[in-house]
């Protein structure tokens, strides 16, 4: 790019490496940005809804993943284009904040940009468009709040939560088992939720995967599952009424941190040293034993010598337990983490009903389950499935469901899914558009069209005729003044989403519309792109 030329037509060298930079200005810049972003949105649009399709993504090192989760797809696509990257971040921030609706937000942004493109062709100033979108967004959000319904999350055995989880799981590969998985997710969240503060620390829910078996075998362990086994094969496989000793020091003679040397001058001394070491092991085991512990979990490894001694003393032990697991176990069993043997006291031990080793299928892999912990503050969901891909996808799906439940605990207002909420907002925004006298009217109307794009896309993915079904739903919404009419994706014969029990959280829908509008506004404000020439 050259910014200016002198009288002889030679370019001024103004910028560093200016020969290798490219510049796009004005309409060209808007269009190229919008097209790039739309391309991303188009990729995702077929994944939307209960009949959405999955994507298969192959990473640079050949790992294959199959997923339906918007945030995961765009992340693994490794998008280079700067504007398209904005959409990736959009999806990820929806993921971070809400955890669900990551596909919807990108599709909506894509629809908005598509509308913006036609408006730009009409010659409307991009900032007028974004002003219009902004006003429309406010109207839509307000309307969402009026049509939202508060639900009692605890009523009827947490039925509402289960339904919401089912909606989130409905579009995933595990949808056949959505009821069971939904229940598991609800129980898991409620176990760790702090209902008084309406806060859920998701770190306390551990999701462990194991290939083999089928998705039905997925279960909730009210306790912790760690991918470790007893340090010695002859140790007992099950410990009832376990008193757990959590150690963060190795079963080894202690080493000073300061650099040290041991100079041995005689054979006697050598023997002494050997005995001293032996003594250490004996003492350590004794200390653990004396405290009343009947199982020791250690963050570090231990000597074979120590292992042998532990076996002799009938003290089952587990080595190399990771730091996060140690913390989770401490939380669940009420144990205190013990940094050195001298400090072991009976009060610091954690209590659990049962610690046992379980084996899966015919494989030799074993895992350790800690169940019936004293204070079940941590839970584990063990996901089983036919292949690694299924298991991974199931993990992502359950994560989505857990997030939805968490959001409902935080804010128990819901809207109905199946595109009904979007349609209701579109109708409201369209009405509002007629009241605006300035150029923004066009933009507001386009916003309504973009919102209608979501049910359209849903219908399309379900193999319905998008235009007929959306038109039908819209007409019915207007006629009956019922914001719960949506698209009958599952072909259950009713288009009232309340009857179909398709619940979505208000916070997720609100966030989707707001975030999408925000990013679209940002893209529309860029009129100049300066970038290296090579992309």
């Amino acid at each position, binding site marked *: 790019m050259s910014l200016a030329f002198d009288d002889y037509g030679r370019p001024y060298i103004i910028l560093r490496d200016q020969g290798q930079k490219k510049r796009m200005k004005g309409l060209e810049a808007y269009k190229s940005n919008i097209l790039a972003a739309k391309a991303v949105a188009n990729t995702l649009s077929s994944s939307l809804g209960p009949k959405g399709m999955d994507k298969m993504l192959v990473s640079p090192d050949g790992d294959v993943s199959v997923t339906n989760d918007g945030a995961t797809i765009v992340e693994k696509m490794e998008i280079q284009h700067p504007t398209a990257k904005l959409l990736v971040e959009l999806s990820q921030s929806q993921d971070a904040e809400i955890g669900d609706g990551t596909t919807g937000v990108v599709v909506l942004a894509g629809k908005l940009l598509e509308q913006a493109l036609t408006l730009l062709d009409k010659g409307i100033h991009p900032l007028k468009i974004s002003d219009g979108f902004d006003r429309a967004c406010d109207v839509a959000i307000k309307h969402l709040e009026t049509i939202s319904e508060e639900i009692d999350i605890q009523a009827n055995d947490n039925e509402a939560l289960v339904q919401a989880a089912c909606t989130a799981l409905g579009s995933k590969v595990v949808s056949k088992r959505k009821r069971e998985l939904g229940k598991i997710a609800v129980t898991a969240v409620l176990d760790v939720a702090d209902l008084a503060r309406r806060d859920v620390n998701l770190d306390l829910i551990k999701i462990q995967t194991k290939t083999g078996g089928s998705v039905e075998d997925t279960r909730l362990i009210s306790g912790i599952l760690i991918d470790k086994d007893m340090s010695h094969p002859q140790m007992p496989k099950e410990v009832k009424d376990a008193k757990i000793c959590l150690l963060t020091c190795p079963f080894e003679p202690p080493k000073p941190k300061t650099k040290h040397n041991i100079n041995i001058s005689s054979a006697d001394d050598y023997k002494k040293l050997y005995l001293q070491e032996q003594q250490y092991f004996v003492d350590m085991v004794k200390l653990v034993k004396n405290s009343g512990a009947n199982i020791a979990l250690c963050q570090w490894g231990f000597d074979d010598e120590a292992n042998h001694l532990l076996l002799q003393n009938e003290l089952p032990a587990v080595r190399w337990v990771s730091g996060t697991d140690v913390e989770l176990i401490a939380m669940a069993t009420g144990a205190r983490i013990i*940094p050195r043997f001298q400090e072991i006291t009976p009060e610091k031990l954690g209590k659990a009903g049962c610690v046992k080793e379980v084996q899966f299928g015919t494989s030799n892999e074993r895992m350790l389950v800690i169940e019936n912990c004293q204070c079940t503050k941590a839970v584990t969901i063990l996901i089983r499935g036919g292949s690694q891909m299924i298991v991974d996808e199931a993990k992502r799906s359950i994560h989505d469901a857990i997030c939805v439940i968490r959001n409902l605990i935080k804010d128990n207002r819901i809207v109905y899914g199946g595109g009904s909420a979007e349609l209701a907002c579109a109708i409201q925004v369209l009405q509002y558009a007629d009241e605006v006298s300035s150029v923004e009217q066009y933009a507001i109307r386009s916003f309504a069209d973009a919102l209608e794009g979501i049910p359209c896309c849903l219908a399309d993915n379900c193999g319905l005729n998008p235009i007929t079904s959306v038109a039908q739903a819209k007409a019915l919404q207007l006629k009956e003044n019922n914001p719960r009419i949506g698209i009958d994706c599952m072909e259950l014969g009713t288009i009232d989403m309340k009857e179909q029990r398709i619940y979505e959280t208000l916070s997720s829908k609100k966030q989707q519309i707001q975030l999408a509008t925000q990013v679209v506004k940002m893209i529309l404000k860029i009129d100049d792109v300066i970038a290296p020439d090579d992309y």
Partner: protein
Amino acid sequence: MSQFLQPTILLLREGTDTSQGRAQIVSNINAVQAVADVVKSTLGPRGMDKMIQTGPKVTISNDGATILNLLEVVHPAARVLVDIAKSQDDEVGDGTTSTTLLAAELLKEAKPFIEEGIHPQIVIQGYRKALELALEKLEGFSINISKDSIESKRDTLIKCAQTALNSKLLANTKQFFSELVVSAVEKLDPNILDRDLIGIKNVTGGNITDSFLVDGVAFKKTFSYAGFEQQPKRFENPKICLLNLELELKSEKENAEIRIEKPEEYQSIVDAEWALIYEKLEIIVKAGAQIVLSKLPIGDLATQYFADRNIFCAGRVAQEDLLRVQKATGGQVQTTVNGLNPETFGTCGLFEEVQVGAERYNLFKNCPQSRTATIVLRGGAEQFIQEAERSLNDAIMIVRRCFKANKIVAGGGAIELEISRFLRHYARSVTGKTQYIVNSFAKALEVIPRTIAENAGLNSIEIMNKLRQKHAQGGEEGRWYGVDINGASGVCDTHQSFVWEPTLVKRNALCSATEAACAILSIDETVKNPKSDQDTKMKPKGQPGRPPMGMRR
């Protein structure tokens, strides 16, 4: 330059580029113009953003200084523009685009004079004279707010912050953010107004209006060791101990070596090391601390020790965060725990660890000696928040300045036009070439309202004529007419529509733009060493100005 018959005298190293004379000045002016054109479209409430990709990083910005900096300008004359934008940014924080535009416009006006053979020094003199008069008038026109009551002063500050945010991505939520910014600045010590004490933290996710102000300090949960989750996460009126101390089991001296003779002594060394760390921890616990923050790591041992005693701890707290906690809570950072005095502990109304988006944040709220505030920004994409941060930074600087200076003028090009009118009037009273030059200065000032109008897609010629007419009425009535981007007529009294800016911004912009223009006008020769090109390439990016090592021959 024709040296056909004369023997060549080699004065400079071969390849040295020397250009000189009038052509050089004109060529410099052209280069400056080109750079100013890049930022031109960002001015005003309808200004657009630029997206600049440098390496893998993409920046989207509306801030003149940021854009110019990212452009990596190498042209020596054009670099002057980058420098004044930067100095405006450092000094007042806002008005960087208008400074750049003004400087370029002054040069553009000077170009015909130079081409016609007027000596550059005369132009410079004229500009200096005009500047002097302009500044005088600027002071005269500005409205003093120092006598106003506190409420109306706060109101004025909010208006100023809104004006600064007008052209940014946050324009639609300017009401919300201007109040946020003013509340944040009000928290500071009014005598110093240290900018560093307002922290801005970015958390992606959430809507932009979910951003909030913490009356105190907020920072992201630091790296924690096992046992951290067992610590309490909420305190009321806690005692906060601030340390610059490593709390880990470690060797006391780096190169120490221990020789022991008997195996029994071995245990004593181990015990001694443990005793050292336990001693430290015990002192802290005994002193009654409930929250322990350290700039250096707090190891797993200490984490668990504190967890056992219901104490919250966080290691590796960033320097600036620790400083803010210190200011907010009234505590003092200790470098040793020997003789730890509970009086050095700070306190705050409420400490809490909360989830913000995907991150966990430590919040210290309701601090008694609060001289600090933290803004937690939320938004959809990383770039969005970064730009929001830059915009808020501008607003904060403006409010700070306004707090101190107490004088404001109306924006939207109104003050520039008023000064321009005055200068035109004045020009008629001088004889000689200066008349032309003062006139040009006056004309150059019009670039601000003209560009605002152009960017908003208005007919700039029509608007300018309307504005000139209003201002020509003289007196109070037409004084504050500026560009109105919303109304049908395109002009309005910007003072009444609350487009206010601190006088200082304008003052600094006028001064530095004129200085820059004069500097460029007075250059009539560039001697460019061929190596200087390579040097700039060799320099690592992001460290301009540092001489490359090992390049001297």
